[in-house]
């Protein structure tokens, strides 16, 4: 058997699996996005050219949802990375001696985001939740966490609290991987702690910080679970992320063509971004 044949055989399981699981859906995605289709004619859609795309592009809600996702992704990724960095570096001296602390700190991210959303539904409830209870008790008032004005801040905080552990963990590992000789050499040279942090440690961790930011941005951008169970679409659609937009368009409004057109747009945008991110990464390495 030639190596070429072997390689093909080695690749067969995953390729077949992907083709079956995602190949057909991808083709259907594209086909239906150009069709007039609803539940009534699910099996016999009629092509309608780019009408669905025009509908999506002209839908202010689509843009609102895109903006929400973008804002949410950037804001949460940024805050998670900053908090994670602070925690990792500040706590490293005691974590080194007490490994179990990691287990405590990463617990939130092991819990399903959907369950986290449900927990907050409970925790933030004015009458059965503990947080408003204490706020009333100590401050005499509690904010409307999920009101239109505050809801973004609330879901932002929830996401940040759940996923800071992720950034923390990555950054902590990178921090610990900095060769101790490097720090020792710097301190022998008389480098002060702050300078050491900014000019030696941060550059060493830069690739990890970039990766952590990127992954958190992606996950923030495609957020669904926790927001969906907590507020759904939000008052007047104020917490409609792109994922929620697609879900609602499909299932609740039955506008399958529109939902799929939005999916295809999202796919293309994601692909373009990934393509450039990949190239950037490769250039970085080279």
């Amino acid at each position, binding site marked *: 058997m030639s190596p070429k044949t072997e390689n093909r055989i080695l690749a067969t399981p995953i390729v077949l699996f992907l083709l079956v699981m995602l190949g057909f859906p991808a083709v259907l995605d594209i086909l239906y996005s150009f069709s007039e289709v609803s539940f009534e004619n699910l099996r016999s859609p009629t092509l309608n050219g780019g009408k669905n795309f025009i509908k999506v592009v002209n839908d202010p809600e689509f843009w609102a949802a895109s903006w929400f996702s973008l804002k949410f992704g950037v804001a949460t990724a940024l805050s998670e990375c900053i908090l994670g960095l602070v925690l990792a570096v500040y706590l490293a001296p005691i974590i080194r001696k007490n490994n179990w602390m990691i287990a405590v700190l990463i617990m939130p991210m092991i819990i399903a985001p959907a369950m986290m959303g449900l927990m907050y539904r409970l925790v933030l409830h004015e009458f059965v939740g503990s947080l408003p209870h204490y706020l009333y008790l100590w401050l005499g008032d509690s904010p409307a966490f999920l009101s239109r004005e505050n809801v973004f801040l609330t879901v932002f905080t929830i996401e940040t609290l759940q996923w800071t552990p992720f950034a923390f963990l990555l950054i902590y590992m990178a921090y610990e991987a900095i060769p101790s000789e490097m720090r020792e050499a710097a301190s022998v040279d008389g480098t002060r702690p702050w300078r050491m942090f900014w000019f030696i440690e941060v550059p060493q961790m830069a690739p990890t910080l970039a990766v952590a930011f990127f992954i958190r941005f992606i996950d923030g951008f495609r957020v669904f679970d926790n927001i969906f169970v907590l507020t759904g679409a939000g008052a007047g659609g104020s917490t409609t992320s792109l994922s929620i937009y697609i879900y609602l368009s499909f299932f*609740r409004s*039955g506008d399958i063509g529109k939902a799929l057109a939005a999916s295809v747009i999202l796919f293309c945008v994601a692909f373009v971004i990934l393509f450039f991110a990949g190239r950037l990464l490769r250039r970085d390495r080279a």
Partner: protein
Amino acid sequence: MRKSNKYLATAAAALLAVLPSLASAEVTVLGWPGGPEEVALRAAAKLYNSNADVSEDNKVKLIFFSRDGFYDKLQADLAAGTDAFDANLLATYSIGRYAPYLKPVTLSDNAAEVFGDAVLKTMQFEGQQFGVPTDLSLHFLYYRTDLIQELLEDASQHDKYGDISEEYLGVRLSPKDPDNWSWQDFAANALYFTKSVNSDSPTRYGTVLQLKNLLFNMMVFHSLPRAYGADWMDADGNITVDSEAFREALGLFKILVDAGATPKDSFSYEYAEANAAFGAGQVAAMMQWNAAAADLMDAKKTPVTATVTATIAPPTGPEGRFTHVHGLGLGVNASGKNVAGAEAFVQWMSTSEAATTYALNGGAPGLSAEVVAGIASERPDLVPLGQFASNYGFVMTGGTSAKALSVYELQAKEFTGFLSGGQSLDEALAKTATGMAELLK
């Protein structure tokens, strides 16, 4: 498309060796899961299966989806021509959506005597009977007898009550017995019992509104505009949502929201949250589904307020007293494997024997006065249910159409958008009108 679909289906099925389970010779009935409806249906099915004249092939087997996304999934299944069940749940607001996949049914001869015409109508679409009604859903006004009583008796507070209503609503009102409330009284009462309006209020909030962007919350809201004469469309099919009635109703809600008469997070509230607020003793009165009565008036489940909670029909308006009403029922899936068996079961469900069994096991059928009288001692709550349904029940014009659910969905989005301050009333109504015209054309 169709052909390739089929090939792929065959290939995938063979590949994964997961073939749909083979036909079984029984009647599969898909019910509404997770509530008293399920228990009641199980009891009824048991009785039906024990009937000697039901052959083995026609015994009923029950299946239940989950509630979340139930209608979306049912829709997708029916559209795909599923034969996974022979009879399935129907709701008034979704009949139009499902009618194309259903077979009209013939009910028992005395169905009209058991349920009454108003209730049978909840299962009709374009003049045809598509199902047997099982449960009735409508809204009650839940209120705290202790607080209202105290207010009525304490004349010293009546001035304040008047001041508040004048300030916020522009009319001077005095406390009344809830059974005589207009929606204005409801609002005045809500404001009076709100801490931020009246610092002496024993409760934090006067009412709790369910304002989550969710279609069911729109149903709860609709009794109010209807009392001002609102409808979705007129006899000619013109959309009439941009009307004085809807403006009045939304305006009233907006006053309550802005005054803080409903909990701050109301925009994330639905059934469970509202009940929790009421049950915590921090709310004086609220509109809620009749189904909540079982929980809210049970001292075990709601220890703080159960004993001082009473229910009554919703307040009245210039056009009268109304409650949104919809029925749940069972229809026959035209693509089912055992259509005849399903028809027989549905027909049996409309008999007096079936309906009473169903009622006695926790169901909430809308029964005629004669039938309900026989079980009034066991289910006193069913008496007002039937009464309210026939006296105050309404369905918006177009409320049973194929796109009814999407209309509710649309209104939920636009109305919550307005109430939460995201857009103006004009904007919200204009968008709703445009959207509804598209959906209901």
